Protein backbone atom coordinates (compact mmCIF):
# COMPACT_ATOMS: atom_id res chain seq x y z
CA UNK A 1 0.00 0.00 0.00
CA UNK A 2 1.27 3.48 -0.81
CA UNK A 3 2.07 5.87 2.00
CA UNK A 4 -0.91 8.12 2.80
CA UNK A 5 0.55 10.81 5.05
CA UNK A 6 -2.67 12.74 5.48
CA UNK A 7 -5.05 9.89 6.28
CA UNK A 8 -7.42 11.09 3.57
CA UNK A 9 -9.31 8.62 1.41
CA UNK A 10 -10.88 9.83 -1.81
CA UNK A 11 -14.67 9.94 -1.85
CA UNK A 12 -15.94 12.09 -4.72
CA UNK A 13 -15.47 14.98 -7.12
CA UNK A 14 -17.77 17.98 -6.63
CA UNK A 15 -19.25 19.25 -9.87
CA UNK A 16 -21.00 22.63 -9.71
CA UNK A 17 -23.54 23.28 -12.45
CA UNK A 18 -26.17 25.90 -13.20
CA UNK A 19 -28.75 23.26 -14.05
CA UNK A 20 -28.38 19.55 -13.26
CA UNK A 21 -30.22 18.08 -16.24
CA UNK A 22 -27.34 17.78 -18.71
CA UNK A 23 -24.80 16.72 -16.07
CA UNK A 24 -27.06 13.96 -14.72
CA UNK A 25 -27.94 12.85 -18.26
CA UNK A 26 -24.22 12.74 -19.09
CA UNK A 27 -23.34 10.74 -15.99
CA UNK A 28 -26.27 8.34 -16.36
CA UNK A 29 -25.20 7.74 -19.96
CA UNK A 30 -21.79 6.74 -18.61
CA UNK A 31 -23.45 4.15 -16.41
CA UNK A 32 -23.65 6.16 -13.19
CA UNK A 33 -26.55 5.68 -10.81
CA UNK A 34 -27.98 8.84 -9.30
CA UNK A 35 -29.15 9.27 -5.71
CA UNK A 36 -32.29 11.11 -4.77
CA UNK A 37 -31.87 14.87 -4.97
CA UNK A 38 -31.51 16.51 -1.58
CA UNK A 39 -31.47 20.16 -0.58
CA UNK A 40 -28.81 20.96 1.98
CA UNK A 41 -30.08 23.97 3.92
CA UNK A 42 -26.73 24.57 5.64
CA UNK A 43 -24.77 24.68 2.40
CA UNK A 44 -27.77 26.22 0.58
CA UNK A 45 -27.42 23.98 -2.50
CA UNK A 46 -29.13 21.02 -4.13
CA UNK A 47 -27.13 17.82 -4.34
CA UNK A 48 -27.16 14.43 -6.04
CA UNK A 49 -24.45 11.81 -5.58
CA UNK A 50 -23.65 9.75 -8.66
CA UNK A 51 -21.91 6.40 -8.26
CA UNK A 52 -20.39 3.97 -10.73
CA UNK A 53 -18.88 0.52 -10.23
CA UNK A 54 -15.65 1.47 -12.01
CA UNK A 55 -15.42 5.28 -11.97
CA UNK A 56 -15.04 7.82 -9.15
CA UNK A 57 -18.18 9.19 -7.51
CA UNK A 58 -19.39 12.60 -8.65
CA UNK A 59 -21.47 14.91 -6.49
CA UNK A 60 -23.54 17.20 -8.71
CA UNK A 61 -24.18 20.53 -6.97
CA UNK A 62 -26.56 23.25 -8.13
CA UNK A 63 -28.21 26.28 -6.55
CA UNK A 64 -31.55 26.18 -4.79
CA UNK A 65 -33.96 29.08 -4.49
CA UNK A 66 -31.72 31.11 -2.16
CA UNK A 67 -28.25 32.58 -2.77
CA UNK A 68 -25.58 29.88 -2.51
CA UNK A 69 -21.77 29.72 -2.26
CA UNK A 70 -21.48 28.50 -5.87
CA UNK A 71 -23.53 31.28 -7.51
CA UNK A 72 -20.65 33.43 -8.73
CA UNK A 73 -18.62 30.39 -9.74
CA UNK A 74 -21.30 29.10 -12.09
CA UNK A 75 -21.88 32.55 -13.55
CA UNK A 76 -18.45 32.19 -15.14
CA UNK A 77 -18.45 28.42 -15.67
CA UNK A 78 -21.59 26.51 -16.57
CA UNK A 79 -20.02 23.37 -15.14
CA UNK A 80 -16.93 23.14 -12.98
CA UNK A 81 -15.27 20.44 -10.87
CA UNK A 82 -14.53 22.66 -7.88
CA UNK A 83 -13.81 20.39 -4.96
CA UNK A 84 -12.24 17.05 -4.08
CA UNK A 85 -13.88 15.17 -1.23
CA UNK A 86 -12.19 12.73 1.11
CA UNK A 87 -13.12 10.78 4.20
CA UNK A 88 -10.92 10.80 7.28
CA UNK A 89 -11.17 9.19 10.69
CA UNK A 90 -9.83 12.46 12.07
CA UNK A 91 -10.13 15.57 9.89
CA UNK A 92 -8.16 17.46 12.56
CA UNK A 93 -5.19 15.10 12.23
CA UNK A 94 -5.42 15.33 8.43
CA UNK A 95 -5.28 19.13 8.51
CA UNK A 96 -2.34 19.08 10.92
CA UNK A 97 -0.51 16.63 8.66
CA UNK A 98 -1.14 18.85 5.64
CA UNK A 99 0.25 21.85 7.54
CA UNK A 100 3.26 19.85 8.70
CA UNK A 101 3.93 18.90 5.08
CA UNK A 102 4.47 22.60 4.43
CA UNK A 103 1.24 23.24 2.56
CA UNK A 104 -0.89 26.28 3.25
CA UNK A 105 -4.40 25.30 4.27
CA UNK A 106 -7.25 27.43 5.56
CA UNK A 107 -10.65 26.39 6.91
CA UNK A 108 -13.31 27.49 4.46
CA UNK A 109 -16.24 26.96 6.77
CA UNK A 110 -17.10 25.66 10.17
CA UNK A 111 -17.96 21.95 10.17
CA UNK A 112 -21.56 21.10 9.32
CA UNK A 113 -23.87 18.11 9.19
CA UNK A 114 -24.28 16.95 5.58
CA UNK A 115 -27.78 15.92 4.58
CA UNK A 116 -26.45 13.91 1.63
CA UNK A 117 -24.25 11.81 3.91
CA UNK A 118 -26.73 10.95 6.61
CA UNK A 119 -25.93 13.95 8.79
CA UNK A 120 -22.25 13.08 9.03
CA UNK A 121 -19.90 15.94 9.79
CA UNK A 122 -18.26 17.60 6.81
CA UNK A 123 -15.83 20.48 6.64
CA UNK A 124 -14.28 22.41 3.78
CA UNK A 125 -10.70 23.62 3.49
CA UNK A 126 -8.75 25.48 0.85
CA UNK A 127 -5.24 24.30 0.09
CA UNK A 128 -3.08 26.80 -1.71
CA UNK A 129 -2.31 25.72 -5.29
CA UNK A 130 -4.52 22.66 -4.86
CA UNK A 131 -8.00 24.07 -4.33
CA UNK A 132 -11.04 23.30 -2.25
CA UNK A 133 -11.21 20.00 -0.37
CA UNK A 134 -14.10 18.58 1.61
CA UNK A 135 -13.54 16.09 4.43
CA UNK A 136 -16.26 13.77 5.72
CA UNK A 137 -15.54 12.46 9.18
CA UNK A 138 -15.57 8.68 9.48
CA UNK A 139 -14.91 5.42 7.70
CA UNK A 140 -17.33 4.82 4.80
CA UNK A 141 -16.86 1.06 5.04
CA UNK A 142 -18.77 1.26 8.32
CA UNK A 143 -21.59 3.46 7.03
CA UNK A 144 -23.64 0.96 5.11
CA UNK A 145 -26.25 3.56 4.24
CA UNK A 146 -24.40 5.67 1.74
CA UNK A 147 -26.59 6.98 -1.04
CA UNK A 148 -26.11 6.38 -4.73
CA UNK A 149 -24.57 2.95 -4.58
CA UNK A 150 -25.45 0.89 -7.64
CA UNK A 151 -29.03 -0.20 -7.31
CA UNK A 152 -30.13 2.89 -5.43
CA UNK A 153 -31.41 4.61 -8.57
CA UNK A 154 -34.20 7.04 -7.84
Amino acid at each position, binding site marked *: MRDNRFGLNFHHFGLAVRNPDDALHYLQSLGYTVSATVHDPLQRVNLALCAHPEMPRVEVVWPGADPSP*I*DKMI*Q*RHSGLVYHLCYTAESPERAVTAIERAGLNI*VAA*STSKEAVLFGGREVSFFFVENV*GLIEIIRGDPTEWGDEPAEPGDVT
Partner: protein
Amino acid sequence: MIDTTDIYEKLSVIFRDVFEDETLIAKPSLTADDIAGWDSLTNLRLVLTVQKAFGVKFTAHEITSLNNVGELATLVQAKT
Protein backbone atom coordinates in the same frame (compact mmCIF):
# COMPACT_ATOMS: atom_id res chain seq x y z
CA MET B 1 -0.04 46.88 15.69
CA ILE B 2 0.18 47.89 12.01
CA ASP B 3 -1.10 51.29 10.95
CA THR B 4 -4.45 51.23 9.11
CA THR B 5 -3.00 53.02 6.08
CA ASP B 6 -0.27 50.39 5.78
CA ILE B 7 -2.86 47.62 5.99
CA TYR B 8 -4.94 49.07 3.16
CA GLU B 9 -1.84 49.69 1.02
CA LYS B 10 -0.77 46.09 1.48
CA LEU B 11 -4.33 44.83 0.88
CA SER B 12 -4.49 46.82 -2.37
CA VAL B 13 -1.37 45.06 -3.61
CA ILE B 14 -2.87 41.68 -2.66
CA PHE B 15 -6.21 42.45 -4.33
CA ARG B 16 -4.48 43.54 -7.56
CA ASP B 17 -2.51 40.30 -7.62
CA VAL B 18 -5.37 37.95 -6.72
CA PHE B 19 -7.94 39.54 -9.04
CA GLU B 20 -5.38 40.46 -11.74
CA ASP B 21 -6.63 44.05 -11.88
CA GLU B 22 -4.08 46.81 -11.44
CA THR B 23 -6.78 49.41 -10.86
CA LEU B 24 -8.15 47.86 -7.67
CA ILE B 25 -7.93 49.86 -4.47
CA ALA B 26 -8.78 48.18 -1.16
CA LYS B 27 -11.27 50.38 0.68
CA PRO B 28 -13.49 49.58 3.67
CA SER B 29 -16.78 49.38 1.74
CA LEU B 30 -15.45 46.99 -0.94
CA THR B 31 -17.37 43.67 -1.08
CA ALA B 32 -17.50 40.57 -3.28
CA ASP B 33 -20.41 42.14 -5.13
CA ASP B 34 -18.08 44.87 -6.44
CA ILE B 35 -15.61 42.53 -8.17
CA ALA B 36 -16.80 40.13 -10.87
CA GLY B 37 -14.19 37.44 -10.17
CA TRP B 38 -14.64 37.42 -6.40
CA ASP B 39 -16.32 34.05 -5.91
CA SER B 40 -16.09 31.69 -2.93
CA LEU B 41 -12.90 30.02 -4.20
CA THR B 42 -11.14 33.29 -4.99
CA ASN B 43 -12.17 34.53 -1.55
CA LEU B 44 -10.30 31.65 0.04
CA ARG B 45 -7.23 32.31 -2.09
CA LEU B 46 -7.46 35.94 -0.99
CA VAL B 47 -7.67 34.93 2.68
CA LEU B 48 -4.65 32.64 2.37
CA THR B 49 -2.65 35.40 0.71
CA VAL B 50 -3.64 37.90 3.40
CA GLN B 51 -2.68 35.43 6.13
CA LYS B 52 0.74 34.92 4.60
CA ALA B 53 1.36 38.60 3.90
CA PHE B 54 0.53 39.73 7.44
CA GLY B 55 1.71 36.61 9.28
CA VAL B 56 -1.70 36.02 10.85
CA LYS B 57 -4.14 33.11 11.02
CA PHE B 58 -7.92 33.35 10.79
CA THR B 59 -10.47 30.87 12.09
CA ALA B 60 -13.21 29.49 9.85
CA HIS B 61 -15.76 31.47 11.84
CA GLU B 62 -13.81 34.70 11.34
CA ILE B 63 -13.52 34.08 7.61
CA THR B 64 -17.18 33.31 7.09
CA SER B 65 -18.23 36.32 9.20
CA LEU B 66 -16.40 38.89 7.05
CA ASN B 67 -18.73 41.20 5.11
CA ASN B 68 -16.37 43.71 3.54
CA VAL B 69 -12.74 44.79 3.27
CA GLY B 70 -13.13 47.10 6.26
CA GLU B 71 -13.90 44.12 8.50
CA LEU B 72 -10.94 42.24 7.01
CA ALA B 73 -8.62 45.17 7.75
CA THR B 74 -9.93 45.42 11.31
CA LEU B 75 -9.35 41.70 11.83
CA VAL B 76 -5.83 41.93 10.45
CA GLN B 77 -5.07 44.89 12.70
CA ALA B 78 -6.38 43.05 15.76
CA LYS B 79 -4.10 40.10 15.04
CA THR B 80 -0.87 41.97 14.28
